[in-house]
């Protein structure tokens, strides 16, 4: 039974047709039923959620105005700081970490009267493509629990896909919202770099990280983006441009919209069922009035190589803060402070995080910096230029989100490079600072969801949302749910 949409819930709570408390209690019941099987949430914020819901109901009874997400249950990825509960990043090193402040997006959610019901599972520090790298357990795909949910925002996407919550927040450094959205059959949007403040998002790759909405439909994602977007003086990379009215943009006609397709996204390695579903989706957009033409992105194929130097270099620097002094795990078996740093980090971090810290440290180290890190930054310039040139000819670029549908648990765990290649189609949007999203566009013969990726120049989220909404108005993929 599909849960009501975020828009319906907020309208009903604001009108007094339903209470925030009963809405939130129903979400908590669904979580209690589903979480043991799928492990979407690392922690359930039961008391916090019920307190918040009751406060919303009291304010409504007193005649006070309520926010646009009044009473809407939402899950947030556990790399977003909250003053309630713990913020673990899926890591042993932060197993007991209690943030003393709320992330900017958490403040915005509270101000809009959304109710955070739990912290979603993720690959440790958002490093992974399957949510198998969490120190606390694997999130399973709601469509087939023997398969991965995708990552790193696998918990957030699975929580929306299984109907536990209508909305979730994830973060996307190289595809970590879009890949699990594709694998779980939900809508996931990576905003343009700087559109959403990163204040309180535990940093991974600071020139790449963005927080974004996960929902079933474009209107719900537009509403959540409206709440979280905008300048924040505490993140000096958040952009000052005015936030457009995303809901109003949804109904823009597609007539004259120019969609580009690039052969670089349809080459070897792309599953044939994914290819045909994505091509059919592009035809649907064309029937709505969009024109389709070919563009070239000759450096896109270097995206993974570029990313795994740039992102790991930034990560090796960002994760230096976990040293066992101010917070996090501290090894007790030490004789001096240097041993304390090394052992605390060695014991606290999981295998993939250590691998990336070492790769990034190597790429920045004396004698290798120019050959690896600087070279990757130069190629990053070429990738950004490719997209700038393509976007002189077209408004959006359409592609698959991933070369395959959700793969079996464990299939790529022993081969880091094979796992990295899952992100081959999503990474360039982060390198170039674009906005991009995953829209459900079909299922393979095994019943696993397929995602269409749409990419647009920085700050062109309204065009993405309009195209996605037009597509969703003509298709019913997003109405299917894994429980039948």
């Amino acid at each position: 039974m599909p849960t009501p949409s975020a828009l319906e819930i907020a309208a009903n709570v604001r009108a007094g047709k339903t209470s925030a408390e009963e809405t939130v209690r129903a979400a908590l019941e669904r979580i209690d039923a589903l979480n043991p099987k799928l492990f979407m949430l690392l922690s359930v914020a039961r008391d916090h959620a019920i307190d918040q819901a009751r406060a919303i109901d009291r304010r409504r009874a007193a005649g006070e105005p309520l926010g646009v997400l009044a009473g809407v249950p939402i899950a947030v990825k556990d790399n977003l700081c909250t003053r309630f509960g713990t913020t673990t990043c899926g890591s042993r090193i932060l197993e007991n970490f209690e943030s003393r402040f709320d992330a900017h997006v958490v403040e915005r959610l509270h101000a809009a009267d959304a109710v955070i019901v739990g912290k979603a599972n993720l690959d440790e520090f958002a490093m992974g493509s399957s949510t198998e790298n969490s120190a606390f357990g694997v999130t399973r795909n709601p469509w087939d629990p023997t398969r991965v949910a995708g990552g790193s925002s696998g918990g957030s996407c699975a929580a929306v896909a299984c109907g536990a919550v209508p909305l979730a927040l994830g973060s996307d450094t190289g595809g970590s919202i879009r890949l699990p959205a594709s694998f779980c059959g939900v809508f996931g949007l990576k905003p343009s770099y700087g559109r959403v403040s990163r204040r309180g998002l535990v940093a991974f790759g600071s020139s790449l990280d963005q927080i974004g909405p996960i929902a079933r439909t474009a209107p719900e994602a537009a509403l959540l983006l409206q709440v979280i977007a905008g300048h924040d003086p505490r993140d000096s990379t958040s952009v000052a441009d005015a936030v457009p009215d995303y809901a109003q943009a949804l109904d823009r006609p597609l007539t004259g919209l120019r969609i580009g397709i690039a052969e670089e996204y349809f080459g070897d390695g792309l599953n044939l069922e994914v290819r045909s579903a994505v091509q059919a989706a592009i035809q649907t957009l064309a029937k709505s009035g969009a024109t389709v033409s070919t563009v070239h992105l000759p450096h896109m194929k270097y995206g993974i190589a570029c990313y795994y130097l740039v992102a790991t270099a930034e990560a090796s620097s960002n994760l230096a803060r976990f040293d066992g002094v101010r917070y996090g795990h501290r090894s007790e078996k030490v004789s001096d402070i240097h041993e304390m740093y090394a052992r605390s980090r060695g014991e606290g971090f999981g295998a993939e995080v250590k691998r990336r810290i070492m790769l990034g440290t190597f790429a920045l180290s004396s004698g290798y910096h120019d050959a690896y890190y600087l070279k990757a930054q130069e190629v990053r310039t070429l990738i950004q230029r490719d997209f700038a040139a393509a976007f002189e000819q077209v408004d959006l670029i359409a592609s698959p989100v991933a070369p395959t549908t959700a793969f079996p648990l464990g299939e790529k765990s022993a081969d880091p490079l094979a796992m990295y290649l899952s992100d081959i189609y999503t990474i360039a949007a982060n390198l170039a600072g674009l906005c991009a999203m995953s829209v459900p566009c079909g299922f393979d013969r095994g019943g696993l969801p397929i995602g269409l990726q749409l990419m647009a120049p920085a700050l062109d989220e309204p065009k993405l949302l309009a195209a996605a909404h037009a597509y969703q108005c003509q298709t019913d993929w997003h109405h299917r749910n894994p429980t039948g």
Partner: protein
Amino acid sequence: MALIIDESTVRHVAQLARLAITDAEAALYAKQLSDILGYVAQLNEVSTDGVPPLDHPQAVANVLRDDEPRTGWTTEQALHNAPRSSRDCFQVPKVLDKEGA
């Protein structure tokens, strides 16, 4: 250019990163990091002569705020997650030996 990282390089990098790793990890990471570096070597196919490095997707500039006093964290907040603290300070193993070297 497929540079192969050997175990001693892995140990050196782990030392730079302040990561204690086991011998088994050193062997595994030598293999895996060599695979990854072999893959990223494809960047050398790309001519980047005269191409400036991109370290940020936007044009960014330093952002300064007015130098005015404002409320910061309390000591209690700052120490809330400290593994060890003493007399309102973070406590760590001794840094200098008895001779003060």
